[in-house]
């Protein structure tokens, strides 16, 4: 399962100026939220979430940030890259009414998750947030899934105006507005999934205190096989590459480092 495989890039799709989706012909057999480690052997091996996975094709959606992703952006269809994985835990596949709250390059994971949830008979609502229209991701792909998508941008250039947090707050607080969904036990959703920048998740946590949820975390990963200890979350010693990247509510609530700090490649704590 963790063996290295070396694949030609089968397809490249430009999503935004800074984001591309790379697809590969391979039976990866991954679950939503799992990730691969990808390298071109030119320096760096980096984690990327699976944004789609069928029987014989899978894809990742990459944001250009630094040296590695910039090099990746120069690759063409037919170029080789080498991957390990899929690694890590995957999202619980719930039934009933579920809410997905996503921001930035973390949204594509929710494309894969939404497909799986729909197949499982869940009624999916997805808040798809970005800063501005140009950075908004996957709205077309998601609209084809037959789920309820609430598009939102911080500046209102696409969909509703406001952050994912604003929208969630509105949705969960304004009972009048959300009346139709509300359930007897006071929970509007059977399950909530969050994937996005850590401070967004931190802001959402209090809003979701009555809900059952899972968060998708990111920490600096080196080995991805649970030995280097670079990706542990304090104080539990949970390795995000093995026990994560998805963590359930009862663990999230115990994380003292959540929203406070993470560790860089040296292991040094970096404050948020």
């Amino acid at each position, binding site marked *: 399962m963790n063996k290295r495989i070396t694949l030609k890039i089968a397809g490249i799709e430009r999503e935004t100026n800074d984001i591309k989706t790379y697809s590969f012909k391979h039976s990866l057999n991954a679950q939503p939220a799992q990730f691969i480690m990808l390298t071109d052997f030119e*320096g760096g091996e980096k984690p990327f979430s699976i944004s789609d996975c069928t029987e014989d094709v899978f894809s990742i959606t990459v944001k250009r940030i630094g040296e590695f992703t910039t090099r990746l952006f120069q690759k063409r269809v037919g170029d080789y890259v080498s991957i390990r994985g899929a690694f890590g835990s995957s999202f619980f596949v719930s039934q009933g009414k579920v809410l997905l709250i996503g921001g930035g390059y973390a949204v594509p994971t929710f494309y894969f998750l939404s497909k799986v949830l729909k197949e499982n008979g869940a009624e999916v609502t997805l808040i798809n947030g970005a800063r501005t229209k140009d950075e908004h991701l996957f709205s077309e792909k998601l609209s084809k899934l037959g789920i309820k998508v609430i598009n939102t941008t911080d500046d209102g250039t696409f969909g509703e105006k406001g952050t994912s947090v604003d929208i969630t707050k509105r949705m969960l607080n304004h009972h009048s507005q959300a009346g139709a969904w509300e359930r007897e036990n006071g929970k509007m959703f059977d399950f909530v999934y969050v994937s996005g920048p850590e401070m967004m998740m931190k802001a959402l946590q209090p809003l979701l205190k009555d809900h059952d949820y899972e968060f998708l975390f990111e920490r600096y990963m080196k080995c991805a096989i649970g030995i280097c200890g670079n990706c542990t979350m304090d104080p539990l010693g949970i390795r995000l590459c093995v026990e994560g990247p998805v963590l359930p509510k009862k663990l999230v609530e115990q994380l003292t480092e959540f929203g406070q700090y993470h560790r860089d490649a040296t292991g040094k704590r970096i404050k948020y």
Partner: protein
Amino acid sequence: MRKRLKTKFLGIEVNLPLVLPAGIMDMSFSGLDISAKNGAGIVTSKSLTLEPRLGHKGPVVAEFESGLLNAVGLCNPGIVDGLTEINQFKERSDTPVIVSVFATNTDDFSKLTNHVNKSRGDFLELNLSCPNVFDEFGIPLAASKDEVFKIVKAVKEISRLPIIAKLSPNVYDIVEIALAAEKAGADALCMINTVGPGMLINTKMVKPVLFNKFGGLSGPCIKPIALKLIYQTYSALNIPIIGMGGVTIGEDAIEMIMAGATLVGVGTAVYYRGIEVFDKINREIIEFMDENNYDNLEDIPKLEKLK
């Protein structure tokens, strides 16, 4: 049941004989803590250097059928932040901690020792495995009995904590190096560090798998080498040995003990059997003791010493 695994190491009672070695699950206090909770009797910090180190670019690990190659490159947050993690661990746990430090000369090792003296660590481990610095005869530091002697002696003079010398297997005469460490005042030895190094090649892309090209071998492939070196050293020295290198199941740990180890390190096997590997091996040791009628860990015999 657990009582049967109690042992003594440098005067300290150790509840369980397994050690989390340097470089495994030890970047954070919580990594040390989860390892102890899963049955490590002693935990070791990442090898800390005076300044933070980024280590090598990835891939930093490469798997092959018999073990791992790693070239993490001694990445660590530096001695100051490293000791903070250790102190924070000691606030929550009674498990003894070995503070591992790495340098390439006596001066830096001394400076590191001064830092460690002020920490809550229980033992000071000197990672003497540097293959990239050479003595005046062109012999790598790890293999130079003179360098090893100088460093251990200097550190011994100022260290508040008992000293463990961590030895490289990549030497012509392990006993010579071990004796130098003992004579210089080392209280115990930890062996072995990774073997080789080695290389693996991605044949499709015609590239070394590790960006650093070369990486140290760990895991099952190195066990016979570890056993041999530990046995030779045990036969010739009087200080205790933390034996490691490829220990994956209980029987491997028994082999280490029979070869002369007092405690047994389990590193790469965390990958193969999960962080629960410590408790799994603890249980397997007990099973072995039951099958062979040994009441306590210390009843397990050692090989007859080499002459």
